[in-house]
């Protein structure tokens, strides 16, 4: 007879006996030990990190104060001398401070801070990381060089920084930040290399910046290749054009006008938004067929056209909105047309909610005129009344005069 009953464990399927029970107990012990060890490690690491943070706060404050003193309080900041006397932890913290200050400062101060970057060895390290590092090392290095406005050799960028559109944009951004002569030519080449599907927001912004410096390389490339680009890239190129405005000079914009006929409605909308910025450019305007707006089958495209014409804002553009917008079959597009027309009125007093503009209508507004039904006219009346009311409230919200009570009564009245 055994001295003790065999160890057993009970499960929903009945008692476990012998080796099975021992294995289960061992598993529980091992699992429990692992969980306990993980908890101890997590707690220990948290305490260590908190201690480090506590030590870094006064260190960072002291470094910040010294940095500002050297930057603004002396003729010669003597960065090398300062950095030579710092510990490794202090250098690490100072590099972090340099990063945030370089992002906020411009002009002479940024140039002075670049000297601190040299003293910390950032310039050389960044070049090494670009030449020998992995993707994230290179990205990190590119960010530093852009912050320090330090353009490396172009071959270094072309050879090592072309893996993704984002990396190419980061490389182009350095040239922009350093204000190099080839910022636009090399920048556009890098950005549009391998014809990306689309840019990141950073890429679009970088394209805008290099094109603003010199629009020719971008416009020449777009004139040649725009039709082959995917719609997402086309929209982004048009977005850049929209914001470049007077910088473009006499650049060839025929591809922008041509994109009004794109089979993709989002591209047509983007084209109208871009052209809205070119009301001053008579040569471009003369190539736009305003009569074709009403024939566009997509309401958001027509709405974009009304906004663009509103931005042009002259009599010819307003007449085109009145011709198409007051009879637009889509409610949202009608509201856009009404809002655009209301915004053209010189003052709130000039806008009568009960007297919307009429295009091609005779004096008898109750009857059908020029093929326009009474229903169409009534539909635009509703949009007009909404737009007038909205404009009044918007004006009240933005008004900064102390005559606010009068405005309040006017809107309520």
């Amino acid at each position, binding site marked *: 007879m055994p001295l003790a009953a065999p160890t057993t464990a009970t499960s929903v399927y009945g008692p476990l006996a012998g080796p099975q029970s021992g294995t289960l107990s061992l598993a529980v012990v091992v699992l429990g030990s692992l969980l306990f060890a993980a908890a101890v490690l997590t707690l220990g690491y948290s305490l260590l990190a908190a201690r480090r943070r506590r030590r870094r706060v006064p260190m960072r404050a002291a470094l*910040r104060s010294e940095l*500002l003193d050297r930057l*603004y*309080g002396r003729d010669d900041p003597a960065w090398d001398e300062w950095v030579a006397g710092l510990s490794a932890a202090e250098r690490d913290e100072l590099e972090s401070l340099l990063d*945030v*200050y370089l*992002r*906020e*400062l*411009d*002009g*002479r*101060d*940024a140039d002075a801070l670049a000297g601190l970057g040299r003293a910390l060895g950032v310039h050389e390290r960044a070049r090494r990381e670009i030449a020998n590092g992995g993707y994230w090392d290179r990205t990190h290095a590119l960010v530093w060089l852009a912050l320090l406005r330090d353009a490396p050799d172009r071959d270094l960028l072309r050879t090592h920084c072309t893996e993704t559109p984002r990396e190419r944009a980061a490389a182009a951004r350095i040239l922009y930040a350093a204000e190099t002569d080839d910022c636009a030519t090399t920048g556009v080449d890098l950005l549009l290399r391998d014809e990306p599907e689309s840019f990141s927001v950073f890429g679009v912004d970088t394209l805008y910046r290099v094109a603003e410096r010199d629009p020719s390389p971008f416009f020449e490339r777009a004139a040649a290749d725009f039709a082959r680009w995917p719609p997402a890239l086309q929209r982004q190129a048009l977005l850049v054009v929209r*914001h470049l405005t007077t910088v473009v000079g006499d650049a060839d914009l025929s591809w922008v006008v041509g994109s009004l006929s794109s089979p993709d409605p989002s591209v047509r909308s983007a084209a109208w938004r871009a052209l809205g910025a070119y009301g001053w450019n008579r040569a471009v305007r003369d190539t736009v067929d305003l009569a074709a707006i009403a024939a566009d089958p997509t309401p958001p495209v027509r709405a974009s056209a009304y906004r663009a014409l509103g931005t042009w804002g002259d009599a010819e553009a307003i007449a085109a909105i009145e011709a198409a917008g007051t009879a637009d079959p889509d409610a949202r597009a009608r509201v856009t047309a009404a809002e655009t027309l209301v915004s053209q009125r010189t003052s709130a007093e000039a806008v009568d909610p009960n007297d919307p503009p009429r295009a091609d209508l005779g004096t008898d507004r109750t009857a059908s005129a020029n093929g326009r039904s009474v229903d169409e006219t009534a539909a635009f009346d509703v949009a007009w009344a909404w737009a007038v009311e909205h404009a009044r409230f918007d004006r009240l919200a*933005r*008004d*900064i*005069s*102390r005559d*606010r009570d009068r405005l309040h009564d006017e809107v309520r009245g």
Partner: protein
Amino acid sequence: MAKSAVIADDDETIRSILQYKLSNAGYDLTVCLDGEECRQALDEADAAPDVVVLDVMMPRMKGTQLLRTIRRGELAVDPEVPVVMLTSRGQEADVLKGLDSGADEYLTKPFSPNELLARIDRLVEA
């Protein structure tokens, strides 16, 4: 008599730069960490700064919203107090919106603190 300024920015780096430059230039400073704190500072009975420096994008109350409140005379501070807007936005529409709200000056980040100080001094001395 010392000049005084109220600065409001939720970015510690910008605050440190403004504090350093303006205090070295002889300004007594009231430093606010967001728009609402600045609104309260400007609504105190003895609030009479020579200039106000506002960031546009701040927690709790945007700079443009606060600026309109000042210009409408809804706070204790003089509605005509010079205001400099400071923002990372550089689009024409944003600059126009800031100026429409009543800003006297508008600087975009990254900025030159020396330029900012020159503009502030010009406003205060005007």
